[in-house]
């Protein structure tokens, strides 16, 4: 039964992670450089740029991030190594670093990107100047998570298949 739970958690963890980080990768491919929205675009709720921004906003990847984090923690807890991982103890330090990177990414998404994105989209009241400035912050926040996903995937893989790297 433990193995089945571990397997199911891992499957959902992969699926959620691909949805989450897939959004970051898609963003990097579709918009490789930052294009600031103009004041006119943000000020006119019918403008094509604003409509595109709105169309792009969906909570899927924000909630996928939570599912990914919870299933990751669930796997560590179910295997009885959560504390060792979090405290970077012994070989569990490998997945422990993955845990801390993932936690940082989740915090970045919910505490930096989303509050700023809400202002860009007009969900939270903010002057036009600030909304344009927030667009740059959301770009950098998204790119930070894209960068962090690279070591995160390394440590996920290394924790299960990388013992030869740590001898």
């Amino acid at each position, binding site marked *: 039964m433990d193995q089945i739970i571990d397997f199911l958690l891992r499957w959902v963890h992969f699926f959620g992670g691909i949805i989450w980080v897939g959004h970051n990768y898609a963003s*990097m*491919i579709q918009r*490789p*450089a*930052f294009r600031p929205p103009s004041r006119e675009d943000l000020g006119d709720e019918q403008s094509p740029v604003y409509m595109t921004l709105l169309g792009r906003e969906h909570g899927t990847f924000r909630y996928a991030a939570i599912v990914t984090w919870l299933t990751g923690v669930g796997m560590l807890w179910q295997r009885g190594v959560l504390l060792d991982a979090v405290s*970077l103890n*012994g*070989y569990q*330090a*490998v997945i422990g*670093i993955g845990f801390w*990177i993932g936690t940082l990414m989740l915090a970045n998404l919910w505490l930096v990107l989303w509050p700023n994105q809400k202002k860009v989209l007009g969900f939270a009241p903010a002057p036009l100047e600030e909304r344009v400035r927030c667009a740059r912050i959301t*770009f*950098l926040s998204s*790119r*930070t998570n*894209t*960068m*962090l*996903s*690279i*070591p995160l995937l*390394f*440590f996920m893989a*290394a924790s299960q298949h990388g013992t030869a*790297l*740590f001898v």
Partner: protein
Amino acid sequence: MKTPFDTATGTIALGMLLTLVLFLIARWLVLGG
């Protein structure tokens, strides 16, 4: 102000560099400091 995040290559390069640094730290932790 331009940053390495303004290109895909810069973002990936930073990620690889960070991976190397963190790998060395992890190795140091696992092998007992």
